[in-house]
């Protein structure tokens, strides 16, 4: 399961760029710091590869195994 800590996000877009399943996109809601942040469009397709977490400079994305709805 992918958990995005929205308030750590600075909207660099790296997670969106590198998601192999293309199921992350920058949302339309702003976080506490006024930044748009990513949301998952289709959790069913997530393979918990954690590439999004690997590329996040801020460590804003945490990934746990097994919790995925897939």
């Amino acid at each position: 399961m992918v958990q995005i800590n929205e308030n750590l996000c600075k909207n660099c877009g790296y997670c969106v760029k590198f998601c192999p399943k293309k199921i992350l996109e920058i949302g339309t809601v702003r976080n506490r710091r006024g930044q748009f942040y990513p949301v998952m469009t289709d959790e069913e397709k997530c393979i918990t590869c954690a590439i999004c977490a690997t590329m996040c400079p801020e460590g804003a994305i945490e990934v746990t195994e097994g919790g995925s709805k897939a």
Partner: protein
Amino acid sequence: MAEYKRSSMIAESPSGYCPGCLHALATRLVSDVLDELGQGDNSLNVISVGCSALNLLYWCGDNLSVAHGRAPAAATGIKRTNPERLVFAYQGDGDLAAIGLSEIMSAANRGENFTVIFANNQTYGMTGGQMAPTTLIGQKTTTTVYGRDPQTTGYPMKMCELISTLEAPVYVARFALNSPKGVRDAKAGIKKAFQAQLDGKGFTFVELLTNCPTNWHMTPLQTLDYMNTNTIPYFKPGVYKDKTE
């Protein structure tokens, strides 16, 4: 399937780095490796001058902030008196390859048993984007407004290549943080360096190619492409020396 849990070695707040800054990613990688090695409390971060000093308010482990370029000297004093600690200096390219060139080469040559994490973003980020010793030929900075001209400013300094010519260092490697593979390799490299230090093997050096969206005047995503086409062809990633086995 993979897991990722944010380390408690970094603050529960955003870093001080700009959006998309791979310095933040480099810092995060170090924190992840310390967690995996169970060395958080035993570690000591020698924080240098420049954007790396943003870690002062971000890093949650023991840390000593030092003068510009002098981190390897201070780390020498630390490690010689407290050899049981996992000591690493975290330096940028202006800090390490210009003002601190003497300190880094000499510490490496003495084979001091600590690790230097070298974040190379080819500019002086904190002071507003001046030319660094690592700035690429033709790259525009606030002090090379028409692009770096080797006739007057020489060529970008290749630190891994320089340091790997020395006898004493046991691990010298360069990784690029602009791709998932590069980040995974970098993490493995940092882990290898720290483990070598814990095993008392000697000086270890990990260069991480990073970016500076703010001073390169690019979006974060544009910097990743720029690194592929410009930085990586010049600063070739790879293991330059490995005497850890």
